[in-house]
């Protein structure tokens, strides 16, 4: 079976700086793969490249069967990216945001409501403006958007960041549920103990290249 993510000598530039200098990476369907490495190693760039947001200027890159070098836009609506930014409208409420982004992704209204319930955002919190939320609550709202949209590939950048213990457990459960439902997860984390317990495999990135793969 063709890997969900296949990078061969993938090179990405940020300005003139090579953020990725020839990364090889395979992620198979149904896997949870952890990207680890020091700050600036290129983890975020790998995730953004797989989402079709950063162009791959050299090498080969295929995600969900889409050739990113030829047309990286074609994969975007099939992936979900949880980045450092929330991707939320500050003046809209939690419910407004989740419902809007869910509808934009062709999800059913019931999926938006179920996602908010799963992330503990139903009830009073649903009607609170995002601008008034804590960092952890914003993270939960961004995760609710992703859950509602049900992407085929989950790309998570530090998904446990800003969350309390319960929230971190929810994230781990979401990743497991996503895979059980047929999706694939690629995530970056500095919380090695927790992340390795969830991941099926770990890929280490340093200096813009994947240097080691461990089972």
């Amino acid at each position, binding site marked *: 079976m063709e890997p969900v993510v296949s990078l061969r000598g993938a090179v990405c530039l940020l300005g003139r700086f090579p953020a990725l200098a020839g990364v090889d990476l395979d992620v198979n369907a149904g896997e949870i793969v952890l990207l680890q490495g020091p700050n600036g190693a290129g983890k975020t760039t790998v995730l953004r490249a797989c989402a079709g947001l950063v162009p791959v200027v050299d090498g080969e890159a295929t995600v969900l069967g889409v050739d990113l070098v030829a047309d990286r836009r074609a994969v975007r*609506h099939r992936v979900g990216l949880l980045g450092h*930014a929330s991707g939320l409208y500050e003046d809209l409420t939690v419910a407004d945001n989740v419902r*809007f982004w869910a509808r*934009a992704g*062709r999800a059913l209204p019931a999926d938006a409501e179920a996602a908010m319930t799963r992330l503990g955002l139903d009830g009073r919190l649903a009607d609170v403006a995002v601008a008034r939320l804590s960092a952890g609550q914003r993270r939960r709202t961004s995760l609710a958007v992703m859950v509602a949209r049900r992407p085929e590939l989950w790309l998570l950048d530090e998904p446990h960041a800003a969350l309390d213990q319960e929230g971190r457990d929810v994230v781990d459960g979401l990743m497991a549920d996503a895979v059980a439902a047929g999706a694939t997860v690629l995530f970056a984390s500095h919380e090695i103990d927790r992340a390795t317990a969830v991941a099926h495999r770990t890929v280490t990135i340093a200096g813009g290249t994947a240097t080691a793969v461990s089972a």
Partner: protein
Amino acid sequence: MTEPLVTPSRSGTMLRDAALVLGKDLRLELRSRVIINQVLPFAVLVLVLFAFALDPDRRILTQATPGLFWLAVLFSTLLALQRSFGVEAADGVTDALRLSGLDPAGIFLGKAAGIAVHLLALEVVLGLGVTLFYGATPHGPVLLVATCVAATAGLAAVGTLYGVLSAGMRVRDTLLPLLMLPVVAPVLIAATQAFAAAYDKTSGEGWRWFGLLAVFGLLYLAIGIFAFEPLLEES
């Protein structure tokens, strides 16, 4: 998991997405009231200041009413655009839009429609303002309304194009007027002339200016539908 849950026809996607984005922008205004509480008072203030500046000669004020009205609309448009695209540039929303699956042409039409709705509401208040402060009485209400609709469509279309172009830049607030004002100069001229005709009982002349506004608006709406995707990509 791999199939989308809802698969609208390709032809309906653009309008569906436009309606979704329009609804979101109207809800944003409902929640924040930035247009009502800040842009609208600014527009009225401009009208009042023009009246203070030209009040010694009431005749000049009356003659200048169409131009002053559209200048106030133009200045307010810049504020409305900065607000409209400021929210899209904040906290990763631009990336979320790119990943959303929304049709870029639909996003363009939705954003433009949202700005147009705000501007039309603003123009109603400004119309009452020029009657109250300047003593101007229109004689061609149909031409007046048609001019507002056509000019607003042009301003919204151009503003949405340049708004997204400058959205990702740190200097967007100062760059937007520099980019946009020269392009919308024909709207200012034609709308002013059409309004002048509506106020002077010479509507026949005014309809020709309306025609120019309609062509301008349709042209930029068409350009926006095709050009918005690469502009969103670069923003």
